[in-house]
């Protein structure tokens, strides 16, 4: 708000601006549009490859538009049992994981947002501590092992129920809600739980949507956890499947495994696999976009 009076004259000046300034603006726009395009280009290239014939892809003919348009690659990937299995694992983990994580994170954030909680500082400190320090890879592995979670589906989401960072965002959002709301509800005889469920949560939809998105993206894109803890092929999520698809086509891998050369998957199939693996999470964005900016902003600007 403070900035707006200063910004206005600058704007009106811009209308009367010199040719030089206009040129500057134009060049700026061109440069930034080009910069933007460079980030879209690999994606378009991938789409084009996934719809092209393998022969065209191999000889480097495909750039932005498919050559010899076909959809056989998609049919092949979508009917491959390993892909479908990995897809189902990822969907299950993302849905269950984001829901549970949101639930747990909210339950942790709410009490911590109340100054009347005894030992609040201590608890917050405990949470922050885990953000900075962790046991390291091997102790964590041993812990997971003794919990009996190795090679079980829940290992992909149970250890990540609370991200302290996300919890703090929710917490500061809760703190920004007017205290009067809670007081009046209390006068009407509402319990803590009722206040949370009936009043606080409905008011916090933007931040909850944002955090859900954070969690969903995190679960969807995570491959490292499965790399460490999953041994069975039937429990491998999509990202691990993709990673394996690519690494097993690299020169280094093939040099050591000459026979694997006979089963390398074609580049067009690889492109189609990426597309099918990226699309679902990409489709979630537009629906949550409107909350997205609002949620993060409101949570962060407070104070």
């Amino acid at each position: 708000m403070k900035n707006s009076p200063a910004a206005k004259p600058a704007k009106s000046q811009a209308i009367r601006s010199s040719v030089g300034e206009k040129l500057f603006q134009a060049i700026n726009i061109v440069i930034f549009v080009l910069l933007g395009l460079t980030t879209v280009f690999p994606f378009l290239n991938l789409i084009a490859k996934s719809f092209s014939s393998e022969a065209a892809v191999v000889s480097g003919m495909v750039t932005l538009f498919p050559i010899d348009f076909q959809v056989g690659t998609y049919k092949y990937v979508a009917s491959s049992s390993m892909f479908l299995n990995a897809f189902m694992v990822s969907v299950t983990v993302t849905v269950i994981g984001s829901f549970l994580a949101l639930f747990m994170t909210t339950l942790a954030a709410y009490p911590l947002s109340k100054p009347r909680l005894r030992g609040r500082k201590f608890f917050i400190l405990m949470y922050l501590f885990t953000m900075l320090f962790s046991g390291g890879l091997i102790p964590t592995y041993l812990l997971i092992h003794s919990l009996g979670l190795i090679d079980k589906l829940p290992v992909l989401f149970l250890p990540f129920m609370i991200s302290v960072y996300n919890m703090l965002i929710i917490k500061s959002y809760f703190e920004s809600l007017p205290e009067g709301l809670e007081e009046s509800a209390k006068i009407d005889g509402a319990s803590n739980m009722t206040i949370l469920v009936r009043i606080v949560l409905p008011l916090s939809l933007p931040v909850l949507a944002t955090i859900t998105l954070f969690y969903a993206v995190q679960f969807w894109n995570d491959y490292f956890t499965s790399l460490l803890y999953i041994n069975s092929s039937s429990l491998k999520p999509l990202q691990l499947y993709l990673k394996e698809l690519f690494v097993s086509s690299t020169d280094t891998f093939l040099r050591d495994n000459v026979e694997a050369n006979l089963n390398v998957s074609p580049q067009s199939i690889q492109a189609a696999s990426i597309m099918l693996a990226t699309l679902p999470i990409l489709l979630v964005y537009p629906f949550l976009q409107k909350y997205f900016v609002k949620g993060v902003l409101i949570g962060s600007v407070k104070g």
Partner: protein
Amino acid sequence: MLKKSIAVLSISAMTAALTACGGGGGSASGTNAPSASPGATAGASKPKPEFKALMQYGRFDPNEQVVAKLLNEKTGYKVTYDMLPVENPDDKLNLLMANKEKYSFMILSATQYSKLAASGALEPIDELVNKYGTNLKNVISQNSWNGAKLNGKIFGIPQTGSGTVVNSSLVIRQDWMDELGLKMPTTRDELYNVMKTIKEKKNVMALSGGKSPLAPEILPTFGLPMTTAALGWEEVNGKLVNAVENPNMKKYLEFMRKLYSEKLIDQEWSLNQSNKVIENFTSGKAAMMSMGYFNAPTVKTALEKNTPTAKIGTVPYLKGDDGKVRVVGTAGISFYVGIPKWAENKEEIIKYLDLKLDKDIHKEATIGKEGVHHKVENGNYIPILPKFTEDYNDASGFLTGVDEKNYPIYWQARVRKDPVLFSAFESNQANAKGSAVLDPLSFAPPLEAVGKYNQKLNKLVEDTFLKYITGAEPLENYDKFLAQWKADGGDEMTKAVNEWYASTKK
């Protein structure tokens, strides 16, 4: 609430699916099969134990494979499989071993095998094999068994693969050769002249290639049959000497430097991945490339798509300076099958691994049923498509030792699934007949020093050689490089290799 119940449901469904795989199937097929199978020995009334196996990475779900089911049914043992990951498999293996995961047997790479054996994680199997391994002893040669011996003891079954195979050869645009009236080169000098003419007349790079500075078709003409940068040993006066110490290596690098500076070879050699090389060749930017037979179908279709009149010719393996043709072949032990110290039922495990090499079981586990997956023509095994590919594409991942006489013949069914693939494979083998050279270390046991320094030296050699070829560093520095190579482990490796070599001659 709804979401939560879905969550609970799917978790329980998952666990149900898991337990069903683990227990249900075993009791049904596991107990019935042994009494029916003729290979089973006495004591069949006792149910056979279930095994858990660890295998190398492959892009398939091992427990769903036809081969896995077939093996379970034929042997009567129920085996479930886990795989190592495709990246950093050694780290994962270390984790699993530190945890004493209950594996019955594990298919290990040479380095993994020697490390685990040295740390005492593997059970010596000499006696068990003597007692229960009739098939094992029959079909696996003494040469291979020697390659599994560490400090006088055998810790795993050596698994060789397809026999001696020559993977790549130089292919050239035959249509351009005809157009320019050029003859196929047979020596290095002729190759140089062909390259020069093509470059002048067609204005393209003559040879595309990438990453590895050791061109597998040119290097042997200097008398240096070297495969990977850190290996490549040769006997000189009864001692093994690495190719980097051979004075001819410098001459090779000089030659490559000349090709590079005259722009006859790919100017992006040091950056290219293999798909870039294929792209250059198939799009007509290059006249030659070194092609692995396994890439032949891709290369052919892509080239013909771009230039329907294009024809691919194969350059015969070139004569060396002494007039002899040398071709680098690959052979040797691909994997070792080890049993962890803490495994239960070790006798049964060996019995199982031995049973897998039973003539009929081994054959069916490799190439399937005759009439369903393959047919026999003139003693060759021809795959029946697409059934063969569907069921047996990944069968080699299940091998735990092979019949060294028959497997190389069975194996060719894999290559015959595509006529272009097979003709490229066969032409390589035919052209290399009588000239294929094997590294003396092919059947050596995994030597600790080699495992320790291989990667590091590989990188040193590749990086430095690429610099010499592209001119980023003058070749006069070769002595300095050699000194570093020796200091960085080359000397230790040479010592270890020669100690082993001397021990084989006794």
